[in-house]
């Protein structure tokens, strides 16, 4: 009984920790690398990002490109983009002013 009691207690603690992190506005996407975004206004449709993408996650949609969920956020596309149109959101990748 004592063992089961301890197990229940630890599970409740886990629940409490999870709730606490939710209440603090914990953004899981930021910890996991954020979201890769391609700015349509800057994109020149050169196709370099499609060529360099290891997981074939970038595809052309209209005049711009979009990134799907298979992206591993290696950010080679950001490195190679001549128009500087690709960046990570919710992270510190943006330059300081």
């Amino acid at each position, binding site marked *: 009984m004592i063992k089961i009691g301890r197990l229940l207690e630890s599970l409740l603690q886990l629940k409490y920790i999870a709730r606490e992190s939710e209440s603090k506005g914990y953004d899981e996407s930021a910890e996991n*690398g954020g979201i890769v975004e391609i700015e349509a206004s800057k994109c020149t449709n050169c196709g370099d990002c499609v060529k360099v993408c290891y997981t074939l996650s970038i595809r052309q949609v209209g005049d711009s490109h979009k990134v799907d969920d298979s992206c*591993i956020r*290696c950010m080679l596309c950001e490195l*190679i983009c001549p128009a500087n149109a690709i960046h990570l959101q919710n992270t510190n990748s943006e330059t300081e002013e």
Partner: protein
Amino acid sequence: MNKRFPRFYYSPPFSTVNGRVTIDYEIENGGISSPSFCFDNERFNESDSFCKNEYLKNIPLVSRLSFLENHTCEELYSSAIEELNKIDVPEIAKYYRTLILELSRIAGFFLNIYNISSALKFEVARMWSLADRERIQQLIFKVKGNEYFAPYIVPGGVRCAVLSKNMKFIEEEILLIETKLNDYDKLLFQNEFFRMRTAGVGTVTKKEIADYGITGPVARAANVSFDVRKKLPYEIYGNFKTNPHFYSHSDVYDRLLCRRNEISDSIEMLKFIFANIPYEKHFANLDMYEHGQLTVKAGVALKRAEGVNGEFICMLESDGSSKPSNIKFRSPMYHLAGDFIKNLINNTSIDDIDLVLSSLFLIPMEMHI
């Protein structure tokens, strides 16, 4: 009396795990005799898989070569390409590179404290070291702004700059960890139980270190003061002068003490970085990248760096095309591990086998037998 032939699993005992280390041994008078070291690893030929890809597409692969030394692999690959292309890296990128290399070194050493505490069933030290490792991982997230295994050190510089507010946060956390090291001293190194369990266990002689080509904290704990950061300084390591430490027994205690002292040295280096980091707008020299390609001039580059476990080497051979003609990484894991570990654990107590292997900080996936 019947002999028993138990099997010790160093890695998880699942057949699906790649890189399983098992040791079959006999027990005689409470000690281990005639151990046989088994290693089960489907080792893929790195050179082949790298040579199929272009230089640029190899960058995320290099980051995933080792779970512990991913930043060291990135540093070696990037610096080899920079040497072949004769590219100068911005000064600020060198500071950022050193920052992340030292942070990952501290995280690695905390993981080793966790391993040894687990082997000894020292629960408090185990939980503390794991929590502190997580704390360092959070700092690495702050630097990279991305996943742990996403590349940060890229040929030409680094992928992104660190915001000044994040830098202040990292500095505060590092100072906090420095104060916590005193608690680790009280918990482990001034603890009589810890000293009794680790002193005189798993002694590695200087001759063994020379014979088996061992580097890193295991060698430094035996007073072999070889450190690539001091002998062949790269990035900004030439600016640091740390006092050498001396150890007397080269046992498990000294090995952990060596790692603890190196955490202090790394913190001193980080303090230097916080105080002297220059302000530059450009953190990467992207002249090499053109039209979705990374071009590398023909030649051979051999780069060496001090990883968490010792000397890490990368050899890169280029014929001027878009793909490398040959590339080879040599990890600091014990290259004659089978023979070395067999000698080391022979005649040790059965209680100490986990402790001795933990103190060597074996990473089965990086080992060659």
